[in-house]
């Protein structure tokens, strides 16, 4: 696994970001920064706008006003294709429901992310196998998602997210669909990743996940940041 430079420079910078869906305000003048090497958890009640915030950072959605800068790139300046290329190089995403392709075995699901960048199948599979090995699921490389356990699926999803060595790893309720044991494993994995320098942004309802993996907690309500606290990680 690649270690990260934790220089403290801002990897994510949001300035006065507003997002409206019709008359509904999803984000209201959000301003925040995430520095390189940080692990930030965003918590809040359902519908408070935390997933919208994650979408803004990932370039999956555009703000109504304000600027979102990730790794020095103002996302508002990018076209749809530019955003796709940006995500490919800079962002890794982990979802609550894994979102693996059912028709591909674990190895090819992971390799896919590199193949989209133009890597050969051989190169992509070698890198994917390396990651699966590091995440402890190399022996499941030829198994299709339907036959994997929840924890294994999420590990495969994490491997896929790390495939292109992203500057920022975004996780949306990564333990939400897992049982407690699998959830624990994923939490350990995320913590390990952060400890070797991977910048993390986790959206979660789970206080245990937040306190265990994050170094900073952002509390969200009604589309805005209501509190920000540095955390002492619990073992």
């Amino acid at each position, binding site marked *: 696994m690649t270690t990260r430079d934790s220089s403290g420079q801002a990897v994510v910078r949001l300035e006065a970001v507003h997002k409206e869906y019709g008359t509904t305000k999803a984000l209201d003048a959000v301003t925040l920064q995430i520095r390189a090497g940080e692990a930030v958890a965003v918590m809040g009640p359902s519908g408070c706008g935390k997933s919208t915030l994650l979408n803004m950072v990932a370039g999956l*959605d555009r703000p109504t006003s304000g600027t979102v800068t990730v790794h020095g790139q103002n996302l508002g300046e990018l076209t749809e294709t530019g955003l796709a290329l940006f995500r490919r190089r800079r962002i890794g995403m982990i979802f609550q429901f894994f979102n693996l392709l059912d*028709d591909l075995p674990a190895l*090819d699901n992971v390799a896919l992310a590199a193949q989209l960048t133009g890597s050969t199948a051989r190169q992509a599979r070698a890198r994917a196998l390396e990651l699966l090995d590091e995440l402890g699921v190399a022996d499941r490389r030829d198994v299709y998602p339907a036959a994997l356990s929840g924890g294994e699926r999420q590990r495969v999803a994490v491997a896929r997210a790390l495939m292109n060595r992203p500057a920022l790893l975004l996780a949306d309720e990564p333990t939400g669909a897992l049982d407690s044991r699998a959830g624990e494993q994923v939490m350990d994995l995320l913590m390990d990743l952060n400890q070797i320098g991977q910048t993390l942004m986790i959206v979660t309802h789970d206080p245990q996940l937040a306190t265990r993996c994050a170094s900073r907690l952002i509390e969200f309500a009604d589309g805005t940041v209501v509190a920000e606290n540095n955390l002492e990680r619990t073992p």
Partner: protein
Amino acid sequence: MSAVWRAARAALRRRKVQSAALGIVVFSSTLAAMVSLGLIEASSGPFDRAFARQHGAHVTAVFDPAAVSAAQLARTARRPGVQAVAGPFGQTTLTVPDGDPNLAPGPLTVVGRGDPGGPVDRINLWAGRWATRPGEIVLNRPDDPPIFGQDLGLALTFTGGSTFTVVGLASTVSQTAQAWVSPGQMAALRPASLQVLYRFTDAATDTRIRTGLATAVADLPAGSLLAAQSSLTLKRDHGRGASAYLPFLAAFGILALVVAILIVSHVVSGAVVAGWRNIGVLKSLGFTPNQVVSVYLAMVLVPTVIASLAAVAVGGLAAHPLLRTVSQGVGDADLATGLSPWVYAVTLPGVPAVVILAALIPALRAHRLPAALAIGAGGASRTGRGRRVQRRLSGARLPRSVSLGLGLPFARPARSLMTLTAVALGVTAVTLATGLSSTMIAYGQASQRAGLVHTLIHAGQPHTGQTVPQHGDAEIETLLRGLPGAHHVTAVTWMELHLAGYPQPVRAQFLRGDWAATSQTVIHGRRPTGPGEAVATSPFLDKRGLRIGDRLTVTHNGTQTPLVIVGQTMDGHPDMIQADWRTLSGLAPDRKATQYEVRLTPGTDIGTYNNAVKTADPGLFPSAAPQVNTDTVAVIGAATTLTLLLGTVAALGVFNTVVLTTRERRRDLGMLKSIGMTPRQVTTMVVTSMAALGTAGGLLGIPVGVVAHHLTIVAMTGAAGIVLPPSMTDVWHIPALALLVTAGALIAVLGALIPARSAARLTIATVLHGE
């Protein structure tokens, strides 16, 4: 409002795109079905239908007025077996002089008739009015205003000086006359014979017709019946022309019907399968299985009924001109009757019935499924179908978006098979149409001698009041050759000859000059190179049991000359031969050419050349030779229309597949975009999936189309009695076939492009967080 209706309305609102796609498919398919049923109807017994409509004459009998009276003839109506009688009408023959610009030279059968109606042979007076006064004539012309409408008002002068004005144009399937005048005018012309038209209670066979006629005329003086023409003989003659196009019409009709049914079934079953997940939800809410089935039937029936009604209305209007065009191509516009009521009666409930059946099968499967399974059935395939293919493709040296696209069809093999079949049938239609067009264009050009003869020059005839040429026959030929732009000149005349051993006369065309460069294609043997040699048409040889190399003796005014058949021409005229002018010199040495055919050098303006001809000799009447065969144009027009219709329906099938697939795979598409797949890569992936099916469809459809072309051409030429050279039937070459393969891919890509672009614009956030 019932819960079923409320749920169906909600489903319709939720699936606007799919409902619209279903509506468009049903509309196009209903239209295609109506046109195809119309074509099948037009191709099945057109003569019989037109004959029944016009109360055609089973026998057209001609009597000697010197041997039998009109009263005696009228009494034959009461004889056993006689169903209806029209006449007696006075009949005579007028002679059209050589060189007449409006009518073919030779005898013209004219009948005196008070009106076009009556119990037998209800003549279709399609332009102008009936002849009621002296000097008025109605010409027998096919119901085709653009071509023959200009004949109305013509002044016709016949040999002997009698002059008539054309006041009406009419047609009759019984071919009882070539022209009609009023009974008063006929009396003035002194009828040479009396025509009586009979319908019998039993006219199924030649024997029964002969028996019916024999019974009808049994009491008449012997020898009073001069001639009789049976409707069955007419039907066989008619078959020579019209039947040539019937296999083509039937082939396209059946093809269109199959494609329409296939696509409707495909779209409807896809729509219901895509709704299984919702079926599960409805069941979990307490809907009974029957209520659930009703919801889904209502969901597909609403757009179906609306689209069917619209299509039937549009089809009723649109099919008539198409069928009329085709019938004109077939050679008898009388056959175009529009769509029969049975076509509406079949189509209107038929297409919704296909929809119900197509919807019912998957809906009943869902009916039996437990709710939990139904809920889980709507997503992407989880059974690993096609996984081996996907796995192999993921290691292929292809851009990943392409290899993913190539694997997509294997996830839903049944749906892919339906799409493949639709595209294959679309390509079959395109292949058949392009092949037929190529053959028909080549045949049309050869029969019209397009490019071989550019201008036809008639020599003015004194008996028609035209200016007579100042130059003699040979001088005219020399003059035409000397004018700027002339490349080849052929002098032509026609003559009726008697063939020793055969009762019927034959029509001989004698040619002088460069006729090797301007005359019809010789498909077997060679052109005559000297006197005593002739070429004949295929039906001429068939009709008389002759072959190339056989010897004939022809007679004209008591002068005999031997002829050897040295070649076979492509044309289908059963009584036509062509011979060199030197043969004519032995039969009629003083005969002059009545027409000159000129082929111009490339780049020469036909109008300029014709003006030069007119200036050089005002007694010459040049006219540009038609370069287009109207029959060919009609058939190609119909083939093109149907091909576009079938191609569109096939593309709609692809469109529907892509809509369903991208809807099912929204989550996968969202994930792929989230890991960096660009919109262009998404479009490439989706379009590739269909282009692969399209290419496979092309590869399957081409051989079927080639075989269909071969069978259709064999049936057409057999029916028309023509033989085509291999150059006209072997129209398939590698570049053309390669283009046809791309036709399949093109149909698929056109159908896939819109939903693929829509998938590329999918909002990832909504898809991925909507689970």
